[in-house]
């Protein structure tokens, strides 16, 4: 028996090693893609100059490169990475909470609400005192918060189950989509163009401030999830089994719901609506590292970051001299990845 257990133990060790290999591999790929994203743009930059500007900007030979990298490209690339990671984690937790492979951060209407908040701000053209440049992100964030409270309020009354949350979320989604459409209908053509551009999602809105705020929200969100890693893993066996293992399913769902809302609002408030990443990144991660949340959460963040970084590169290459809104190209980059894994994968993961 001891021999059997030892043999079996080494088999599970090999599986963990395989998963860690995937994690390290996609981290390396993300690092390469990140550098590639900084390199890509209208001004041709030498890879060594870019690396020098990143590692030791004070001693870099070409000051123009340092300025381009630090003032323009690095905030955009970091923002793409942070937004992708936030949506990847939010998507993974949404699918876990709702036990539904089609769930994404947008299922519960947070993104539509953020879009409405931005659209109405653009339509009326009002500005916040003290921080006028932050009016749209703040309003988008607040609007997503209202959607979050609506879904939570309904779920709180009827019981915080997956079914009630999905129904309440879909109702909220349609409500904010309708109001968003109404705002667009009422808007003058030039205002409409601005609204549509915001809704497409673009990294051109990124700044060091947005990087810091969204980055802080991502770190806080993941830190809040840390104590619940095993409980969330148990939830994949269903509510009843998780409860039988000692998980307070309602309280867990409540906590993680607010984390998902925070991550989603933090991601979309600055750069606009970006679809697909939150749906697909968790599936890619699950295929590589399984459902153990200790690996699934970092892998979902990395896959989300990778899709967004790839999309950011594609958005700059697709139309020479212009940057296509990144929200348009996320699916173009992610779908080949997904199809490849579906075709080469040996088993179902959802």
């Amino acid at each position, binding site marked *: 028996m001891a021999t059997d257990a030892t043999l079996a133990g080494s088999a599970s060790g090999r599986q963990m090693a395989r998963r860690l290999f995937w994690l390290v591999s996609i981290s390396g790929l993300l690092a390469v893609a990140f550098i590639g994203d900084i390199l890509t743009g209208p001004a041709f930059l030498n890879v060594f100059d870019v690396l020098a500007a990143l590692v030791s900007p004070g001693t870099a030979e070409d000051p123009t490169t340092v300025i381009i990298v630090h003032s323009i490209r690095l905030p955009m690339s970091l923002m793409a990475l942070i937004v992708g990671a936030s949506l990847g984690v939010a998507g993974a937790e949404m699918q876990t909470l709702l036990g539904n492979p089609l769930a994404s951060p947008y299922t519960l209407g947070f993104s539509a609400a953020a879009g409405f908040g931005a659209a109405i701000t653009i339509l009326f053209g009002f500005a916040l005192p003290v921080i006028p440049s932050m009016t749209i992100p703040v309003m988008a964030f607040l609007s997503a918060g209202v959607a979050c409270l609506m879904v939570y309020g309904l779920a709180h009354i009827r019981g915080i189950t997956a079914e009630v949350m999905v129904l309440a979320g879909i109702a909220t989604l349609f409500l904010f989509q309708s109001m968003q459409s109404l705002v667009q209908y009422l808007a003058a053509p030039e205002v409409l163009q601005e609204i549509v551009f915001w809704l497409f999602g673009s990294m051109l809105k990124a700044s060091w401030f947005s990087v810091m705020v969204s980055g802080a929200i991502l770190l806080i969100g993941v830190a809040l999830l840390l104590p619940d890693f095993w409980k969330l893993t*148990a939830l*994949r066996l269903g509510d009843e089994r998780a409860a039988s293992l000692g998980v307070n399913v309602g309280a867990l769902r409540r906590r993680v719901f607010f984390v998902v809302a925070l991550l989603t609002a933090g991601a979309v408030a600055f750069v606009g609506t970006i679809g697909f990443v939150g749906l697909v990144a968790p599936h890619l991660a699950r295929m590589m590292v399984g459902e153990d949340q200790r690996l699934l959460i970092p892998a979902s963040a990395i896959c989300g970051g990778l899709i967004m970084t790839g999309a950011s590169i594609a958005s700059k290459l697709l139309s020479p001299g212009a940057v296509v809104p990144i929200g348009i190209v996320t699916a173009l980059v992610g779908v080949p990845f997904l199809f490849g894994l579906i075709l080469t994968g040996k088993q179902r993961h*959802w």
Partner: protein
Amino acid sequence: MFEIKEISVAYDGRTILDRIGMGLEQGTFTALVGPNGTGKSTLLKSIAGLIPAKGQAALAGRVLNQNEKLKTVAYMPQDTGAQSSLTVLEVVLLGRLQSLGMRIGDDIRAQAIAALGRFHLEALQDRPIGAISGGQRQLVFLAQSLFRAPKVLLLDEPTAALDLRHQLIVLDRIRATCADNGMIAMAAMHDLSLAARFADRIVFLNGGVICADGAPDKVLNPEILQQVYGVEAEVQQGQSGVLHVSPVRALQGIWA
């Protein structure tokens, strides 16, 4: 001794369980039987603290609070399939969810593999739980429950949808753990012959109350079966000495 005192459950003003009480001796296996919808699952869940209920559960004279119940009482739900791609080993490890950290030690991993080994399932440890057969899955969940080393194990129809071989393996292992470790087990069951074969005691539940309770040879008789199930049934002793229940016909007028 594990004691259940005055357990009552009501939904929307309708009484599901009415002041259920019983004492379960250490090292015994009790079968909880009765018609569908009579409150068997509700009783098990209320004892485990998974649904709100009036009443108390006490172990060795000490009333258990919610946290103590989670540590002492394990509940294994009915198997309704599993779509998860969690591996078999991960599922067993989750049995000790409360003590798992970011890193899983070699000792706890070895114990989980040993728990699988009791059912000869070590070879499946890397397989997704959703990709193994229903019988194997039920054994994995039983291994998970036993990995928790509970003092009281409550099982909801542990042999439902299992083939004959797996039915015997599951119940034999539960009984052996009761005998070896002093664990107290109670299982909601429908197969009365299996209950007679493995249980030390059978409790008949009907309409939210206990209507018969005792050793299989004392309570398994045609009169009680007619009263509880509304059927004419024969109870015979096989060559091995085990009682067999054969339903003959449903009685008209008793059930709509």
